[in-house]
């Protein structure tokens, strides 16, 4: 929307995960009931999204009137700094919550065992996707964002304070990233490089879905996820390459992605 490609999205994701671990261990040691651990987890994930506001106000806003390449570079600087900042704060060992993952038990779905927590996360992401969709299409704020993506000057001429819009959009995006990082933590462990895999997959998702399209991103994520699962069970050697081949095929055949609206 903002036409910022944020290389640091992976770093935010990792940050969310680390903060999630800390929040949950604090919560557990403070004696909070295990069944409610998602609440502090999600809250911590959302709260640390404030880093997005800091990055936007402290760095990105200086370069909006310059070539977009400079935004890319600034987010690269953030990647470098975050890696060491995480190391300074949490050390080098992977951080992990204990058994909270299985607090909600397991269910059998379509013949396979799945932890209830996974289903909660899936439901939560669906709700978030719907909320974002609603925000973009139903609210004034959303209309402004979409209009600004098309024509910045026009929106500014209408008297909208774009600086505030950008700060909010970027913070919102960051908060979603950190929340995502926090929510996966019970099922995994926080490692400083966990974001890097994510960046690469995020590319695939965005290119397949179409640059700048929310619906496309959602579909792209589904395509990538399903393809990976299929590749792993059918021909594991192909796993990541298959996704790249799809990306290239999409680029050749449908340069704007499956749902692309943003012009090249």
């Amino acid at each position, binding site marked *: 929307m903002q*036409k910022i490609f944020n290389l640091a999205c992976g770093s935010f994701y990792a940050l969310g995960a680390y903060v999630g671990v800390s929040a949950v261990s604090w919560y557990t040691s403070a004696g909070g009931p295990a069944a409610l651990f998602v609440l502090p987890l999600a809250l911590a994930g959302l709260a640390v999204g404030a880093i997005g506001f800091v990055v936007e106000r402290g760095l990105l806003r200086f370069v909006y009137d310059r070539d977009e390449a400079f935004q*890319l570079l*600034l987010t690269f600087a953030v990647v470098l700094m975050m890696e060491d900042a995480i190391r300074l704060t949490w050390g080098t060992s992977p951080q992990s919550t204990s058994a909270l993952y299985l607090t909600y038990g397991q269910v059998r779905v379509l013949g396979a065992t799945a932890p209830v927590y996974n289903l909660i996360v899936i439901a939560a992401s669906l709700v978030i996707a719907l909320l974002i969709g609603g925000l973009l299409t139903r609210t004034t704020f959303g209309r402004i964002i979409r209009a600004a993506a098309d024509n910045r000057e026009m929106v500014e001429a209408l008297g909208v304070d774009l600086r505030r819009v950008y700060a909010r959009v970027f913070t919102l995006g960051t908060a979603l990233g950190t929340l995502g990082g926090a929510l996966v933590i019970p099922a995994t462990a926080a490692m400083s490089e966990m974001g890097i895999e994510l960046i690469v997959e995020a590319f695939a998702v965005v290119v397949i879905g179409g640059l700048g399209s929310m619906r496309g991103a959602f579909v792209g994520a589904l395509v990538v996820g399903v393809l990976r699962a299929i590749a792993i069970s059918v021909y594991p050697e192909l796993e990541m390459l298959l996704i790249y081949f799809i990306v290239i095929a999409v680029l050749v055949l449908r340069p704007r992605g499956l749902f692309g609206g943003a012009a090249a």
Partner: protein
Amino acid sequence: MTARLVLGAAVVGVALAPLVAPTYHVLLMLPFMAYAVVLLGLNLLFGYAGLLSFGHALFIGIGAYAGAFLTGPLKVRSLEVILLAAGGLGALVAAPVAALCVRYVKIYFGMLTLAFGMVFYTFVLKFYRLTGGDEGLPFLRPALLGWSLEAMPKTDYLVGPYYYYSLAVLSVAALCMWRIVHSPFGLCLKTIRDNPAKAESLGIDVTRYRWLAFMLSAVYAAVGGALLGPPTGNVDPTLLYWTHSGNIVFMTLLGGFASFFGPVLGAFVFIYLQNWVMSVVPYWRLVFGAILAAIVIFAPGGLMGLAARRRRPMRVSGA
């Protein structure tokens, strides 16, 4: 004229360095010269054609692996052949990649080049029987101008013949690039950077010129990549990793992309700065990230821009 004096003094200084400077610092000049070749190419694309590639490590990797394959399994030791093959292979890979990428501009171009870089990175890691996977491949000592120089201790070889060979390659590369940017082609690239729509209306085939600039920069990156191999003696997938692309963009910006020699200066400062900061601060990435952010925000013209002070007053206000 002062510019020429400075350039002349720099060349003399670099030529004399092996005679006077400590061995270790002379050795650091080798990656500097290799990166300088890469950056001359990258800046044709960024500084002159206005396209910021975040995936040029791909071509560095191709050059380096080409050298490793030639010196190893194929038993070709001549560095002249290696450099030619590296450039050729770089062009071969770049042809389709560039054709797909130049259909996009700005941020999308950056993303796609990054994505392609990662595709090849994954490829190199995955096909480990061919590429050695994470272990990489040894880059055996190349022969220079037909001399095998195998009997020399490696360090003597590097700070002696190989040093001057690299310097010669860099000089030739710089001369060629100087001609390119001052040719009619260079002028057309600048029109495309400044205003693609207007350039198109003058009959300049924007896509084709961008493609050509991409090809040239890929050839330069591959040649530089091949030069990067022998001092390490090994090539590995991290050469293709996206953060490596980030580093070379960092160098370009540090020196200043608006000037011909800016990126070369950037490579020099980056390498010695990194050497120093890495030894002094364990958390050197934090320092480097902060430096990069400061340059982007406060000194978009890089060191050359600060030195010249004749560029437009920079704009630091918000949107």
